[in-house]
């Protein structure tokens, strides 16, 4: 936990070797635990050795960045907010993906730096709006999950339904695919998942799109970040950001980040982009009181 007021000078940490760790978010359906290709690309851009590793759990990235064992992390938005709070880590870039539109989560041509969360129900359930969810059973993710809890719960409140009251029973499930399946299997009446989650289970349940449909789609949630240690000097912050952008532009580089991480492009980002998350977090915290 060092203070990081060094963003304007060349003072601060200069990496001799860059350590990168990422948690793939489930949004990418072709997730692979591949690190080597990115290592090569980054090394070519930066001219120093690069080590890339993979984790399924962002806690380790945040902690390792806190102990200066990891320089760059791919963090989902909620994790970034926590990392910034704990260790003053700094966001450089946000990933862009192709947008999705209804029906059936079709991909659009437009690249966006956000995603959304949805409330799914069975088509034959008769539930048409948020109001109908009173007294129902909802599959949710962890209470730290942006798309699987915070956004939909807060927005439901704004529509006048309190998820912790109003006779609603929540069932915590593990993974958005499980949320989709629990609705499909009628274990729950509804589920909070990110938009596109139905695609994961398409292979296992081919009729998912017709049986399970969204009744509500939330506001924009900022996309995954590329975050660096707070004490990294400004020159290197720029260099790293430029490197990632350059990689996304080349044909080979794009192919890799797209197939491995589901990222299509990177755009600059700043901490204030995530204030919205902080607001939602605060509201969610009140909700839970």
């Amino acid at each position, binding site marked *: 936990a060092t203070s990081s007021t060094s963003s304007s000078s060349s003072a601060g940490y200069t990496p001799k070797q860059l350590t990168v760790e990422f948690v*793939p978010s489930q949004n990418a359906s072709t997730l692979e635990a591949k690190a080597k290709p990115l290592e090569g690309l980054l090394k070519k851009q930066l001219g120093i050795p690069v080590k890339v590793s993979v984790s399924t759990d962002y806690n380790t990235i945040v902690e390792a960045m*806190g102990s200066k*064992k990891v320089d760059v992390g791919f963090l989902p938005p909620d994790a970034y907010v926590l990392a910034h709070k704990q260790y003053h880590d700094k966001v450089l870039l946000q990933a862009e993906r192709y947008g999705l539109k209804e029906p059936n989560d079709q991909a659009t041509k437009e690249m966006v730096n956000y995603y959304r969360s949805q409330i799914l129900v069975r088509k034959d359930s008769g539930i048409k709006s948020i109001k109908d969810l009173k007294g129902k059973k909802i599959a949710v993710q962890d209470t730290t999950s942006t798309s699987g809890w915070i956004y939909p719960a807060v927005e439901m409140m704004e529509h006048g339904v309190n998820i912790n009251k109003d006779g609603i029973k929540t069932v915590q499930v593990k993974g958005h695919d499980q949320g989709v399946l629990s609705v499909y*299997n009628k274990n729950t009446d509804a589920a909070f998942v990110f938009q596109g989650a139905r695609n994961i289970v398409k292979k296992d349940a081919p009729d998912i799109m017709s049986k399970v449909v969204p009744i509500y789609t939330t506001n924009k949630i900022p996309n995954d970040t590329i975050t660096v240690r707070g004490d990294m000097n400004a020159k290197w912050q720029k260099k790293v950001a430029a490197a990632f952008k350059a990689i996304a532009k080349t044909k080979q580089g794009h192919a890799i980040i797209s197939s491995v991480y589901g990222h299509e492009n990177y755009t600059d980002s700043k901490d204030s982009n995530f204030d919205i998350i902080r607001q939602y977090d605060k509201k969610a915290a009140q909700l839970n009181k």
Partner: protein
Amino acid sequence: MQTTLENHPLPHLFWRRWHWLLWVVVVAGVYSWAIGGLHFTGIQESAGSVSRSILKGLLHPDWAYVYNGSGEDLSSLILQTLAIAFLGTFVSALISVPFAFWAARTDQHWAHLRSGSGKVVLTLIRTFPEIVLAIMFIKAVGPGSYAGVLAVSIHSIGMLGKLFSESLENMDRGAEEAIRSAGGNRSEILTLATLPTIFPEFISYTLYRFEIAVRSASILGMVGAGGIGTPLIFAIQTRSWSRVGIILLGIIVMVLAIDSLSERLRKKLI
């Protein structure tokens, strides 16, 4: 031969004959609590199609993943898993020896406190989740298989220390006695009698623990501490069953090979 009852009255203890009933009641209580407390989900509507696609995936493993030269394929990750388990278990076995002497209950009275505290410490180490340990080590040495090695080394002490201390408790003390009666001091007893007597058992437990470490090294992958675990988790999360299939096959082959090797080693030792 008449009845014997007058000269040798049969001992008849009500409690002795019926105390098992108490056990029945206790056990029945535990089970009804266990069954009643859980709410069971039945087979899911999607179970049929899901199991079919799992089975299909497992039966059509993704052979291309076995080796592709990238250093991130099945064979290199399996090797890495083996290395983590091997190094971790070795270090752990060394550290476990003093722990075992700490926790072993030998005949002296004052030993109860010592061995008791040793046992609690070993249990704590055992209970401390490997995942949390891995996070702590990743914080110290960065992500990667070295953190995995450290996590295995520490976590295994819990079990190895326990097994070692139990074998110390149960060992035949004859050889120790002989050295003592010939005028040996503590360290001579230890090196000339205790360790040679106990050595094969220690090795055998270490091999056993190695097998377990190989299997559980996959857990470490969850937090980025190296090994075959990471791709396994990803494959499961994205429901890529043919990838799961090939990884599973790899694990099975690896574990069976390790098992039969260590079995042979163990037979040789004892």
